[in-house]
């Protein structure tokens, strides 16, 4: 049983590590600020949850450690979208505009965000 738990937990830890690594690669490969935020989202959600679940299996069912890991999981899932949203909004207010793949099907960014900075006006990908 202990070996089985170890195998499952290591599989989850390695998979989670791979997710975090993919997120980091995505941050470097994607072309602009807004798409990079999505790559960071992979690390935030699946990467951290797999690692935390893997760690929970390593605790030997100590209640206080399990509760702490579960709380970390919950707080990450509650705070990371708030942070992403704040980042995106701050970038828009700063005049940054996303590079678009298909500007013809996209809607306009609301006017209240002000004028885009000159270098991000030509926003075709």
């Amino acid at each position, binding site marked *: 049983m202990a070996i089985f738990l170890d195998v499952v937990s290591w599989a989850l830890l390695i998979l989670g590590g791979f997710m975090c690594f993919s997120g980091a*690669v995505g941050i470097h490969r994607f072309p602009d600020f807004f798409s990079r935020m999505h790559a960071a989202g992979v690390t935030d959600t699946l990467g951290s949850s797999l690692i935390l679940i893997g760690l929970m299996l390593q605790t030997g069912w100590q209640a206080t450690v399990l509760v*702490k890991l579960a709380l970390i999981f919950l707080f990450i899932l509650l705070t990371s979208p708030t942070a992403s949203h704040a980042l995106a909004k701050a970038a828009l207010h700063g005049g940054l505009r996303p590079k678009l793949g*298909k500007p013809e099907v996209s809607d306009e960014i609301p006017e209240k965000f002000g004028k885009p900075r000159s270098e991000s006006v030509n926003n075709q*990908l």
Partner: protein
Amino acid sequence: MTIKSSRYTISLIVVLSLIWIGNSGFYNAMLLSFGAVSVLFVVFVAHRLEIVDEESQPLQLGRRIFAFWMWLLKEIVQSNIQVIKRIWLGPKSISPVVMQLKMSQQTDMGKTIYGNSVTLTPGTVTLDIEDDVMTVYALSYDSIQYLQGGEMDRRVKRLED
């Protein structure tokens, strides 16, 4: 103090005590009394701040929120796989779009849950919410079409009533 607000006070005391006990793991009188003092102090501060209400503790969501979380976790896993595929395929595989979508939620809480769920699923980020229109930025048109299909919108709407 009305009956309504004492309900939120009691739930705040219960939640804070569970957090203390769950994190401390010591059951001797001294540490438990420290916990009681801390809980009472936090409840006092929360009352002074006037944040003991249905907004800070959405008790009316009840058990339905757990079913929603389970469904949301499944969606998060699926959209993560999509984004990871795009990361390894390279920047040519993405085609970002910005779209304005109607949302059917009436309450601030419903709008917040919907907006945060959209942001939490990789591949879509809520840029802005004004009245009942939200501006979403997505890595590809598929994710927008999925949101336009309205399953997430309906499930959040159901949490409201």
